[in-house]
Structure formats: C-alpha cells, structure tokens
C-alpha cells in the first residue's frame, strides 16, 4: 500500500506542483516586505502563462517564451504601480482589477491571436529545457526530485536563497524592509519609498511571469484559459503565513506540495475528490492556527 503513495511519480511531481507557486510567492514576498499589499499574483501569473506560450510560439524558442512571460509580468507590475503608487489607489481594488484584467486579457488575446477558445496547443510551442545532473543519478530520491526538472525549478531554489541574503545584507534589501515597516524612516534617511516599492513590484512581475512560464511551457506546452487556477492565491496566503521570510516560505510551499501530491493519491483510495482537494488548504489552516497559537502563547501582550 505504501508503494501506492511513494512511487517515483510522487516525488517528481512535488517539484512540478510547487515551482510555479514558489516563483510567484517569491515575487509576492518582496512586495509584502516592501509594504505593497499585492494580491494580484493570480493575474500576474495568468498573463505570464499566456505570454510564455505566445513568445515561445512566435519566437520559435523557449527562451523567447520565458522572456515574453517576464515582460507580461512587468507590464502588469507597471499597471499596478501606476494605479497604486502614483495615483494612490487602494491596493485591494487595484489587485482585484488586475486579477480580472489578467484573466480577461489572456482569454481575449487567446481568441483574437490564435482564434481558439479554451485550450491552445501547437507543436511550435517550445518547452523549457530540463537539466540532468549525472552526479545525482545514483541517488534514487535525489535523482527523482532534482533531476530532469525545468530550468525554472533550479532558478526558484537558488532565488529563495538569494532572496534571503538579499533582504538581509543588500542595500536595496534593507530599503525594501524599511519601506514595509516605516516608510517615513526611509524617506528621512534620504531614499524614496515609492521608488523602492516600484522596484519590488517589478521583481514581483518578473517572478510571477516566470511562474506563468513554468505553468504553460515547462511540462505541457499549452495554454488553457484560467490555467493559474488559484495558485496565485495560494502564493499570497503562503507569503502572509511566513511573514515574508524566504526560508520558511520555501518549506511551507514544499509541505503544501507534498500534501497536494498526496491528496491526488488518496483519491485513488476512493475518497471523494472534493475532500482530497481540500487537504492542502486544511493543512495550511492547521499550520496557520499552530503558528498563531504559538505566537499568542509566547507574546508578552496579554490583551483580550
């Protein structure tokens, strides 16, 4: 029975399930730390996914796919900045607008450019390269998890570590943290919080664009309407859960991926799909309750 669960596909699917969420969450994390309440990750990813397919198809290579996905993310980041940072729009309203825009724009472009609705797949869509590390071949588990994944998987892992050090020790990382905590302090130290937040949004656009590319041109090579399917929201939740810290974020997403992957298997045991699909969310909520319970217990404030 245990073999049913721990088959090779189980381990290799973890990376597949988690990479897009990790990439998007890294983008959301930078925004969170910079004090930009960006819950438009879903829209960012979706446009990124479409742009990846478009770029890959037109440019005849996965590189152009990834690049155009990034441009898609940056485009929405600039829209977000224009309405939130420059015109002082409420970030929730702007986020909702962008989520709708991401869905509408990708669907509209799909129909007007490719003249299809629902799904677009074409042999001309090039998939992202995968990497094989011969060194890992002889280690069963490491081979399954780390070999033959899309290049974005490795970028995501390296970025997690890079983000950790960037936020902690880099000048702009420090500015981002200050922008999120006390922007007056940043202004009085001579930097412009709006510029710092704009920078954070650009990073977010880039990473969400890559998350979209990972969805549409890594394993499948096709675009489906609304294919982000809530991953942007999961990324938002994970960022909030780990209070914007990259390392806990990474492990939380792995946990999420493991449970998600498990739930697919539990379905095989005959549990209703509706129940198994809940599992990742239930685990997230349990973690949230556990974390806040601990925080409550150890907090010095005893307000009611």
């Amino acid at each position, binding site marked *: 029975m245990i073999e049913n669960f721990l088959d090779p596909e189980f381990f290799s699917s973890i990376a597949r399930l988690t990479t897009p969420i990790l990439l998007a969450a890294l983008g959301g994390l930078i925004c969170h730390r910079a004090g930009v309440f960006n819950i438009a990750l879903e829209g960012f990813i979706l446009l990124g996914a479409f742009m990846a397919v478009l770029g890959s198809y037109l440019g005849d290579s996965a590189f152009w796919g990834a690049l155009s996905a990034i441009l898609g993310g940056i485009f929405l980041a600039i829209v977000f900045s224009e309405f939130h940072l420059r015109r002082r729009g409420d970030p929730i309203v702007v986020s909702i607008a962008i989520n709708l825009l991401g869905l509408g724009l990708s669907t509209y472009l799909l129909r007007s450019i490719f003249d299809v609705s629902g799904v677009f797949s074409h042999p001309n869509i090039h998939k992202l390269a995968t990497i094989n590390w011969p060194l890992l071949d002889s280690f069963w588990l490491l081979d399954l998890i780390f070999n033959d994944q899309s290049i974005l998987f490795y970028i995501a892992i390296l970025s997690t570590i890079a983000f950790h050090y960037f936020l902690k020790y880099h000048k702009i990382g420090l500015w981002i943290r200050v922008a999120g905590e006390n922007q007056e302090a940043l202004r009085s130290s001579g930097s*412009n919080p709006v510029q710092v937040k704009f920078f954070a949004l650009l990073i977010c656009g880039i990473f969400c664009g890559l998350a979209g590319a990972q969805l549409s041109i890594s394993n499948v090579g096709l675009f489906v309407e609304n294919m982000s399917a809530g991953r942007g929201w999961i990324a938002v939740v994970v960022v909030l859960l780990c209070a914007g810290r990259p390392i806990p974020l990474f492990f939380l997403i792995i946990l999420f991926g493991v449970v998600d992957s498990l739930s697919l298997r539990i379905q095989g045991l005959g549990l209703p799909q509706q129940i198994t699909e809940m599992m990742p969310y239930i685990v997230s909520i349990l973690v949230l309750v556990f974390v806040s319970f601990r925080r409550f217990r150890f907090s010095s404030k005893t*307000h009611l």
Partner: protein
Amino acid sequence: MHVSLRGITVDFGNLRAVDKVSLEANAGEIHAVVGENGAGKSTIMSVLYGSNTDFSGKILCNGKKVSWSSPKDAIKAGIGMVHQHFMLVGNLTVLENIALGNESINQFGFIKFNTIRANILGIVSRYKIHIDLDELVDNLSVAQRQIVEIIKLLYRESMVLILDEPTAVLTPNERAIFFQSLKNFKAENKTIILITHKIDEVMDIADHVTVLRNGKLISSSQLEITNKEKISQEIVGEEIPRLNIKRGAYESKKILDVKDLIIKTNFTTKQAINFSINTGEIIGIAGVSGNGQTELVETLIGIRRASNGEINLLDKNVINANTQTRRMMGISFVPQDRQRDGLALGASVWENACITKVNDKKFSWGSFLRKKNMKAFSRSLIQEFNIKVNGPDALVRTMSGGNMQKLVVARELSSQCPLIIVENPTWGIDIGSIAFIHQKIMDIKSAGVAILLVSNELDEITSLSDGAFVMYEGTLSKRISKGKNFRELIGRHMLSGFNTYYSPTGSSPNE
C-alpha cells in the same frame, strides 16, 4: 558649522505656518527654539533638514547659500535631525537602523556590516554609550531608542544636530545623562538646535534662545540677557492663568477601593495593589513610563483581566464586569493615547463626542441615533472647553493635538461619573491647553468626583494630586501624602525604586 535661515516663509494651503523667520546658529552652541505646538518650530526645522522644500527664503551654511531637494542633500552637508517621533524601524536591529541611509557597500551592493559595526563601536566607546548593536529596536526602551537616533547622526558625522523635543520621553536621570552628552557634542564644536517647549531645560542648557509664536519670530537672544518669565510670556503671548482651586460641598465617601489586586504584567514580582480614592480626591500615580501604569489602568477599566483581587466601585466589586458595564456603573476614562484609544480620527467631532453616550435616552431612540441632540451637545462641549474646530461636523483628524485632547477630556468629564481615570492628560500638548485641562480637572474635583491621575510628569502629579503612589516594576509604593518634600519623595521613588529605598529597619519616607 554656522547655519543661518533668512526670511523663511512656509504656507500650508491658506495657512501661513512660518512667516519670515530668521535664525542663526553658531558652531559650538546650543540653540534652543521654543514655542507652543503649532508655533512653527518643527516646520522651520523641516526646511533646514530638506524634508520641506516648498518655502521661500534662504538657507546658508557657513555663509554659503545652499538648497536641498531632499533630506539626502542636507545629510550630505552635515545636517542631522532626531524627529520627535523617532524614525526607527522596530523590526530591524540597532546596527541596521544606524546603517540605513549611510550604507557602505561592496561592489555588488551588499552592505559591509563589519566595517559599519567597527565604526559604530568606535563612536560608542568615545562617548561612553552602552548599547547592544544586535538588539531589535522594538525591544529597546524609549531612552535607548533616542540614543540610537543620536548615534545615527554621529555615525554620519553630522555637524549640525537638530533635536525635536528630545526630552519628552526621558526620566530626570536619563535627561541629565542626555544633557551631559549634548555638552560633549558642543565641546566638539557641533551646532546643536534644540526644539523644546520646556523652559526649564532651556534655562539649564541653552546658550541662545529663539522664541516663535504663531509662525512668527518673537525674539532671539543670548540666554544671559533674558530670563525665564520673559521667555514664558513670549511663548504664550499672554499671562498663563494660575490654577484656581475652590472647595465644593459634597458628602465624603469612598468611591474606589482596590483590594489585593494582582495585575498581569511582564514583571516578575506580582505584588498585590491596594489603594482607595474618596470623593473630591485626586490620587496620583507617578512613575517612569513602562512600569506597569498602563496595565493598572487597563485592569481598572476592564480591558485587561486581573489575576486576582477586588475592584470596588461604590461598594460593588466590578472585577468581572466588562468595560461597558464599568462605564455605566460610573467609571470614565481619558486614555493616554488619544489618537489610538481616545478618538476615531476619521469620524466627526459630534460622533466622537457622543460615542460613550449612545445608550443615553437623550441621544438615542431605540437603536437610532438622535443626531440633532448629539450635535447640539457637541456644540456645547466645543464652547465650554474652548475647542478650536470648525463645528461638530469637522473630522477629528483635522484638529491639532491639544484640541483633540480637549475633546477627549470634554467627553469624559461631561459623563458625570463618580470616578474618572486620567492617564497622561497633557502629553504632547501646548502650555495653554495644559493649563486649561488642569483647571477642568480641579473643577470636577471640587464637584466631588474621585480622580485617579496617572502621569509621567512629576509636576502634574505634585500640583494636582492630594496624595500619590509611585509605580515601579509593577508594584505600588506606599502612599505619599501631600506636604513638605512631596516632590522630592516621589522623585526619589521614581529613580531608585522603593524597594532599595526602604531599608528593613528604616523609617517611612512620610515621616
């Protein structure tokens, strides 16, 4: 560095905040800028610091005309400022806070924290400052945060230090240490501009004093050729009314009786608290802020649960009652943080004035509000308390700090409760409003209301209260009665903690 501001004028919309003010500060001089809230002190300093660039007039540094487009330029030119509300980031370490804005970085943009740390340690040891560079600012006391702000300026090698109300948060002891370091900076030929509204401090430490009132320059002179009375008059523009104390007729009885109360604090000692207040009595709770006063007040009004004990209000134990019940039973409360706990800033004056009275038949009709009566009531409060605002419909956010506080005090004092708890009622407001609020407190005392006055201002406690306790690390001292040495006794308790003050065989300080 010699700085001079020439004919500075700043307009905020139609309001002229600063009107052709000139000011000269020399190197090696402590230059005090005094005036009430809204006199334009902070505004003119924001011009010098580059955070306000919309002004007319000239800034000269060492005789050369300069202009800033942001604080960055001013900082580069050697001007540093400690704001009244500290510009620190709580979730960052001391080291990170000091590095912010003056990061020395390697070619990849990463901050060279080791170099910065070594530099700061040099400064810290030169001025004999004790601070842990790896502590989060959130965990520091207010005095320590101020030290961090000052190290920030020293680290940037500022030659002009602008300090906005630096002593508002310090204990007498900390203030003495702080003034000593100011003298050290002065000896190193730095220019120190001290913004304050405490005249005693000016007399203690300044070399030169500039008085502003309503945005205009009133006087600027060496300290030797002026005096305290003259400065006070120039600040207020008229004589400050003296406290008028009269005795009303009321039956004397016990209003509040706190027995064996154990409050939940972070302090290790959990000593029971006992005290009582009678009609027409003001009991002061003195102490350095953060010694459990806020927790005590929260317990009394029912925001914080007590571990044990009794709170008897008019002979009824209210320990298990919630805040609303306690208010209905006769406790009214002026919280210390008017902006956070006292008022809804985005709501109107009339809404704020009546928020505690919605159950009153006069102000509600079933669950509907009687807006007309509420507004009329607010108008009467505005008049009685001389609150400067454009009528009851104005938003509270648009009022000055002193007027906000008057509104809170007006609301709570008009409740006609037998007990009123006031916590730091004059924190951060101008001299005129302070005198007014003190007079109002004395008026309700003479009407027989029992008053618990929790304050960090020693002068406030000594001038108003009939008896006082000192709170230290969550415990209450013995009652100190009004009389000779009242002030000295309270002061000594505040500084040393009474446990060390009372020797086992020693005598009570009341004797």
